[in-house]
């Protein structure tokens, strides 16, 4: 455990050194949050009168802001460090460590996600929860959580989302072994994960076959499900089931990526030096 913790510490300290990158990320999230809220507002204002939307405008705006706050936790691409490692052959240095390679990568991806989250979440939280209402934009601000139960559910699901996100990150990164270039895997992941986690359009607004699809995929347990606890559409009674399904997905993704990595390492070739 101490060994994997060392890998975690090394990566998180490296990430924390890039503060300018984090600042740039924060501004992107402000921008996207505001744009998405404005789109929501336009939708709601142009909807037929009397139409009962699954979320109120205020709830939809909150959902969007939650998405911007935890944006760094969403595994919408593989870990660039891992992908670069495989591309350049530096993966050799991971193989000379007395650690399980999969565990090492998981620890590193988790460190990357969590350190990025730590650097970014607070300014957006403060902006959306306090500053927006203060300047008269309460309609598109983040509403406080639905009671202590809502907050608890949100935080617990988020705690499970972190390892799930790291596992999916490693899973996406695995495709590097087969393709050398990660552009394809990253592009597909970006589309799939952003949409089906609820980061683009709040999932409660979508019905029909799309709903069936997002319920069959693991990605909503990264974002949509925790947000629903915050909003109060899921309550403490739903908590055990949600946590259990999230844990099952975590186990499934961990097992799959572990198997893939072990298979790929056996066929590994490292050229030049």
């Amino acid at each position, binding site marked *: 455990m101490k060994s994997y913790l060392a890998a975690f510490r090394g990566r998180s300290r490296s990430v924390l050194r890039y503060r300018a990158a984090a600042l740039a990320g924060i501004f992107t999230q402000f921008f996207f949050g505001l744009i998405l809220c404005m789109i929501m507002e336009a939708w709601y204002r142009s909807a037929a009168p009397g139409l009962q939307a699954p979320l109120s405008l205020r709830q939809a705006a909150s959902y969007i802001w939650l998405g911007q706050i935890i944006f760094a936790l969403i595994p919408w691409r593989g870990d660039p460090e891992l992908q670069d490692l495989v591309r350049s052959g530096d993966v050799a240095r991971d193989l*000379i460590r007395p650690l399980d390679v999969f565990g090492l990568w998981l620890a590193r991806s988790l460190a990357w996600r969590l350190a990025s989250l730590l650097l970014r979440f607070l300014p957006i939280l403060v902006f959306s929860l306090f500053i927006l209402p203060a300047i008269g934009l309460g309609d598109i601000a983040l509403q406080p959580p639905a009671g202590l139960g809502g907050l608890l559910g949100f935080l617990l699901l988020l705690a499970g989302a972190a390892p799930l996100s790291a596992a999916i990150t490693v899973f996406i990164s695995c495709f590097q072994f087969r393709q050398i270039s990660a552009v394809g895997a990253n592009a597909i992941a970006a589309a799939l994960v952003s949409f089906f986690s609820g980061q683009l359009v709040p999932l409660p607004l979508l019905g029909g076959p799309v709903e069936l699809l997002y319920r069959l995929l693991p990605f909503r347990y990264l974002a949509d499900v925790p947000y629903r606890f915050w909003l109060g559409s899921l309550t403490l009674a739903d908590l055990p089931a949600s946590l259990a399904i999230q844990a099952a997905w975590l186990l499934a993704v961990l097992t799959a990526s572990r198997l893939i990595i072990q298979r790929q390492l056996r*066929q590994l070739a490292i050229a030049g*030096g």
Partner: protein
Amino acid sequence: MIHVEQLSKTYTVYKRIPGSLRRQRLAVTALDGISFNVSPGEIVGYIGPNGAGKSTTIKILSGILHPDRDHGSCLVNGRVPWKNRQAHVAGIGVVFGQRTQLWWDLPAGESFGLLGDMYRVPPALSRERLARLRRELDLDGFIDTPVRQMSLGQRMRCELVAALIHNPPLLFLDEPSIGLDAPSKIALRDFIVWLNRQHGTTIILTTHDMDDIEALARRVLLIGKGRLLFDGSMAELRREASDEKRVTIDLAEPADEAALRAWYGPRGLRIVALREHRLVLAYDGSALAGTEAIAVAVQPLKVADLSLGGQPVEELIAALYARHKL
């Protein structure tokens, strides 16, 4: 310590057929039945031209690559490297001259601490080892600098520490001197000798710098096209290659080349180079003793300075590669 028998490795590479989108699958043999043993405390120089299979051997011995199945055997510290990789790598250190194993964005000192934890070295022991290595490699000026801002020479010294924090009995150095300046190379050599004497560390060294080999390796393995071509001491390798010796003379007065050629030719000496005030002569060491050669060499000359030596190692190796058509 290392026992290798009939080790083979084949890579699959793809060749694009020109003007077509199809590609051709090719099997490239990197290692073709290599066998050797290494005893504890040895320093072994592993040489061969680019693409000969040096790095492949190191990577198999360090557990990174799997060799071809059903071919040969390989035991390092009593273990099959790729079968029980985690236990195996805890007992080896590896330095890749062309790669870094330090955290690029962190100061080297922090990397050492993290590596100590990774190898489960007790903190007190890790600190003590680090203090000794730090002194020996003179890291004080840059141990708190992020690795990305270090010069190559500084980084390579840190790489050595990183590979030794768990005090492995076996150290692989894969082209550690690549790109280093002369003082750094000499510091590196001194350190390797110190490590081998002080700790009895077994060292396998690949390099293209023949001065490294001459300064360090009591034993040389020469590999070419995946086959082991020579296994013996540097002196034996010299004898194997040629017995050519050199007399280098600084002239006090200019000399006439044609006249010299006429004088030396029948007496078993050959002019290798005559430039300004420097004359280099070659002779067959098995036919002529050193004193005889000097006597013949100086007779037609006014000599300012003179030295006697073997064929430069670089030339010797080049001749050897040429002979084996590598």
